[in-house]
């Protein structure tokens, strides 16, 4: 989770991803929240990340980031959910559904067949798990797999009550919640 309404995941080198998460969280504040007192919209967040990754391709003494990112989030101003892919080159793309990593090609072919505009939340989790199962050789369990959903504000995750603040929209599913859905596959 980068901001209460934006989360990202990766494929590639874990340590590089952790560096990018730290950078993104800091940039969200220094370049946006401390100026406008609101969190950056997802497009701005993605542009900041892409800027960091692009800069690392041209700066002396450092190597490019060894990760591709999937950044998902909710945009207040257009009242829409958005998904972006960011590559090590610093180029980024908006998607309706996509995959990154070793088996991205086959997973995308799968998503092309199974995804459509009016899938409900439980349906897209189902499709995402099916896509993952197709391309993973080992066993899928709640312990070796993460799912985050970005949907309605989660008031109970705020940690306090009695303000007009809305809760974060990013929610990580627990191992049990994931296992329930894996059993239903």
């Amino acid at each position, binding site marked *: 989770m980068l901001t209460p309404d934006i989360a990202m995941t990766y494929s590639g080198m874990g340590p590089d991803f952790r560096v990018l998460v730290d950078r993104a969280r800091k940039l969200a504040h220094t370049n946006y929240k401390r*100026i*406008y*007192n609101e969190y950056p*919209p997802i497009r701005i967040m993605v542009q900041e990340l892409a800027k960091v990754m692009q800069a690392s391709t041209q700066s002396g003494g450092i190597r490019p980031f060894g990760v591709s990112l999937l950044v998902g989030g909710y945009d207040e101003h257009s009242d829409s959910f958005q998904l972006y892919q960011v590559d090590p080159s610093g180029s980024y793309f908006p998607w309706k559904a996509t995959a990154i990593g070793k088996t991205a090609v086959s997973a995308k072919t799968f998503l092309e067949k199974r995804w459509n505009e009016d899938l409900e939340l439980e349906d897209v989790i189902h499709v995402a798990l099916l896509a993952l199962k197709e391309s993973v050789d080992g066993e899928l369990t709640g312990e070796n797999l993460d799912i985050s959903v970005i949907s309605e504000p989660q008031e109970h995750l705020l940690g306090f009550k009695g303000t007009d603040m809305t809760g974060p929209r990013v929610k990580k599913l627990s191992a049990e919640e994931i296992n329930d859905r894996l059993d239903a596959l």
Partner: protein
Amino acid sequence: MSDPSSINGGCAVAMVGKDCIAIACDLRLGNQSLSLANNFEKVFPFGDKTFLGLTGLASDVLTLKEDFRLKHNLYKLREEREIEPETLANLVSSSLYERRFGPYFVGPIVAGLHSKTNKPFICGFDLIGCIDFAKDFIVSGTASDQLYGMCESLYEPDLEPEDLFETISQALLNAVDRDALSGWGAVVYIVTKDKVVKRVLRTRQD
């Protein structure tokens, strides 16, 4: 005497009505007691339904007007949309606090309607950017004491645009007549969800 915020004179006021807001200022620019110009507007538009009023030292008013015009233009390019009044208010606040130990000698006020919901918003600031959120009215400038008095007695909530215009105009006119450094003409903006009306008021010229 050498207080920077009262060398040039001038004042501004903003009010909330029913689904509308009004923001007004006088037109005087002077050097101490010597009046120099009667066309010095202190209210500036930022997008269709958001306005910034800047009173205080005239040089700082002009500098900040240009500074916020720059920041507003960059914001529009980045976000591909207009800035909301709340967002502009926080931008003004953080910009002024950047100069915490060498401040601009201004008393800004922000007034506007939300671009989508048309919810009225007004607020004022001190010279280092502390925001004063208000439900009813905000005053600023050398006639602020007089404006407080006029607004406290004339203001009522949920006024229609025409009545709000009358209220803010009378409040401003009668306040500046009791301040030697304000007056020499006045401008009033009435902002509703689909229309902005700018009126220039005839006032005493002494």
